[in-house]
């Protein structure tokens, strides 16, 4: 065992094909050269083509007047606004549908995942049938299907379906009752206060339990706070809260909250499709926890809820979080299918923009940058959360 470097007759390093490091250098230079050449070639072609077609490059077009209307927007927008603002509207629409979709798909998926593991034969069969069907049909097709169902098979506003008082389903979309009035701000304030109080209370309860072993009934207190504080806000404000019920006026509804057919179809499709994947993730997470853990937790006398919360979930989450992250990322990226049914998300707005201005490269760069930003933010957050719950090994 003579070490090459310390042996007295260390051969002088010569440039030779047999030296791995020389070879690796040559390979790397070669690969960088090829990639660099390819990029240079594409860019020079592009610049040439742009010059021939008289397209100016740059992001100046963002300040020009857009001149097209956008069906729905969470901020004020009119065709007289700039392209920049139109794209911003698109980004907000994407975020809106993604966030709602992630929250709802997580809840529905978790329920389905647990249902699939249920000892109840009927329930687990229904859950697994749902999961298999939804996972194996393309999302785009599901979107077309829901959109067709809403716009074709639903009745018009005059004889809209009315599953609950104040809820109308028609081919103009979904109408929900809204709430308005001064009390709303007070109630939201109360809710915020309740959340802060619960966080503080949980912290104090954990400290006290670590010090004295006394258990604080946190769940009941939290439930109480969530109900009582907004109610107090309502009383303080004098109870000026009005329900804004949608009512039929002429050929359409007035008042209430509207979910357009496009938004409703996109949201439904995303939730139904992703929840099937979330269900599988949750199921594999729960199954990954050894049966012995349940038994051990039972042996020290924990109730079933505490078993789940203190023993099973912390272990299952370690398996669940990484694949869940990629499901969230998929949902966000899949929201780009909105363009196929005409919901004005970022892809659809940028597509209109680049058809009008011809700024294809800039447009696609904007789409990619927007999605990369969102994807990276979600993965950074989930990685942070993953690290927090990861097993602390000695």
């Amino acid at each position, binding site marked *: 065992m003579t070490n090459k470097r310390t042996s007295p007759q260390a051969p002088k390093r010569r440039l030779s094909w047999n030296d791995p490091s020389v070879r690796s250098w040559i390979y790397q230079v070669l690969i960088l050269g090829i990639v660099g050449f390819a990029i240079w070639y594409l860019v020079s072609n592009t610049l040439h083509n742009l010059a021939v077609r008289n397209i100016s490059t740059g992001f100046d077009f963002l300040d020009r007047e857009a001149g097209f209307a956008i069906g729905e927007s969470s901020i004020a927008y009119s065709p007289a606004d700039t392209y920049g603002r139109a794209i911003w509207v698109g980004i907000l629409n994407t975020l809106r549908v993604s966030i709602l979709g992630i929250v709802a798909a997580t809840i529905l998926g978790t329920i389905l995942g647990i249902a699939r593991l249920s*000892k109840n034969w009927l329930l687990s069969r229904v859950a697994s049938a749902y999961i298999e069907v939804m996972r194996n049909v393309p999302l785009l097709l599901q979107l077309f299907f829901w959109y067709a169902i809403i716009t074709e098979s639903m009745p018009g506003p005059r004889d809209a379906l009315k599953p609950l008082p104040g809820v109308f389903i028609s081919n103009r979309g979904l109408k929900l009752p809204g709430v308005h009035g001064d009390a709303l701000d007070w109630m939201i304030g109360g809710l915020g206060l309740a959340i802060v109080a619960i966080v503080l209370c949980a912290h104090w309860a954990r400290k006290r339990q670590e010090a004295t072993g006394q258990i604080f009934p946190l769940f009941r207190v939290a439930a109480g706070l969530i109900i009582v504080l907004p109610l107090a806000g309502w009383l303080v404000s004098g109870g000026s809260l009005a329900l804004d019920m949608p009512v039929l006026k002429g050929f359409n509804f007035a008042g209430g909250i509207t979910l357009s057919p496009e938004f409703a179809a996109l949201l439904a499709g995303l939730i139904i499709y992703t929840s099937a994947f979330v269900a599988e993730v949750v199921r594999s997470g729960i199954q990954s926890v050894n049966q012995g853990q349940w038994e051990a937790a039972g042996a020290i006398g924990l109730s079933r809820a505490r078993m789940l919360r203190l023993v099973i979930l912390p272990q299952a989450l370690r398996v669940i979080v990484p694949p869940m992250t990629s499901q969230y990322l998929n949902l966000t*990226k899949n929201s780009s299918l909105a*363009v*196929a049914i005409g919901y004005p998300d970022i892809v659809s707005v940028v597509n209109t923009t680049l058809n009008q201005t011809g700024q294809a490269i800039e447009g696609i760069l904007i789409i990619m940058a927007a999605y990369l930003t969102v994807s990276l933010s979600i993965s950074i957050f989930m990685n942070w959360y993953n690290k927090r719950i990861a097993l602390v090994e000695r």
Partner: protein
Amino acid sequence: MNQATATATELPPPRVHQGAIGWMRASLFSSPLNTLLTLLVAWLLLMVIPAMVEWLFIRADFSATTAQECRASGGACWAFIVEKHRLILFGVYPYDEQWRPLLATIILIAIIVCSCMRRFWKPWLGLLWIAALTLVGILMWGGVFGLTHVENDRWGGLPLTLILATFGIAAAFPFGLLLALGRRSHMPAVKAVCVIYIELIRGVPLISLLFMSSVMLPLFLPEGFSIDKLLRAQIALIMFAAAYIAETVRGGLQAIPAGQYEGADSLGLSYWQQMRKIILPQALKVVIPPLVGIFISLFKDTSLVVIIGIFDLTQAAKTAVADAAWRGFSAEAYLFIAFIYFIFCFSISRYSQSLERHLQTGHQR
């Protein structure tokens, strides 16, 4: 203890724990909550299933010749599918030549089924693939052996979906493998190139790549040189799938213990020999289930080419639905192609589960 059990007379289990009643008690009504859930689900099913069966089959119309006739029946209008099935399945391929895409579809399905059977896992399977794909190309394009030439913008429907998926997988798999090896490489430049590529592609939706291929690729190429629309979409699909395959294979490579690399080194194998003979066979076996998952998503993702106007199965259904003479039967058309997609995806996923069991060699816990 043994003696005690031996002397005791064996009593049959109580009747309520046996047979159908026992099963129902155990799996449907074991607790108040379970009973409630069972009743709730049963009520839901009773609400949904009879209505669905009635719409799908009992009141459905299979033979109507006009849309009015169909609408009058009040059920599903399968006559619409009967009327339009050639359009949905084969797109606008010349009507008299549609046996060619049909044969191509059968060949593609046959080659996929063959690759699934272990007795075909021989070195010549690769040659078989090349032969089959060439044959499909000849059948679809024509122009030789007396077949009339058909431009590929007239291809459509199921064969096009299958072609996009199989050619996509066949090309993306080796590409993804190289990317995965590159990402694990000790050469920083190679690693950086692969990491940037993989992360960039995985961070953006497939639609943006498809748009890029349809809008930007013509700008990238020198003047007067153009690639047709179908090939551009195929390239976008391959680039997209390769990044995901690379990440999956990387997972498998990471699962191989370092001792395997060291052992291969000590035998004096070159890098490619090591990979081919020692590392990849083990790594790929570990990642078969997620890899099949990626193939299934690629199959489903081919439907996205609709957005850049390629006539795949989904686009064909949309076209059939848009016929003014047969308005209002979108649900039937979409259900029909959903069923086709489902059959393919579901059987592949079932196959992957059985493969996983067969390849189980005791490495897992």
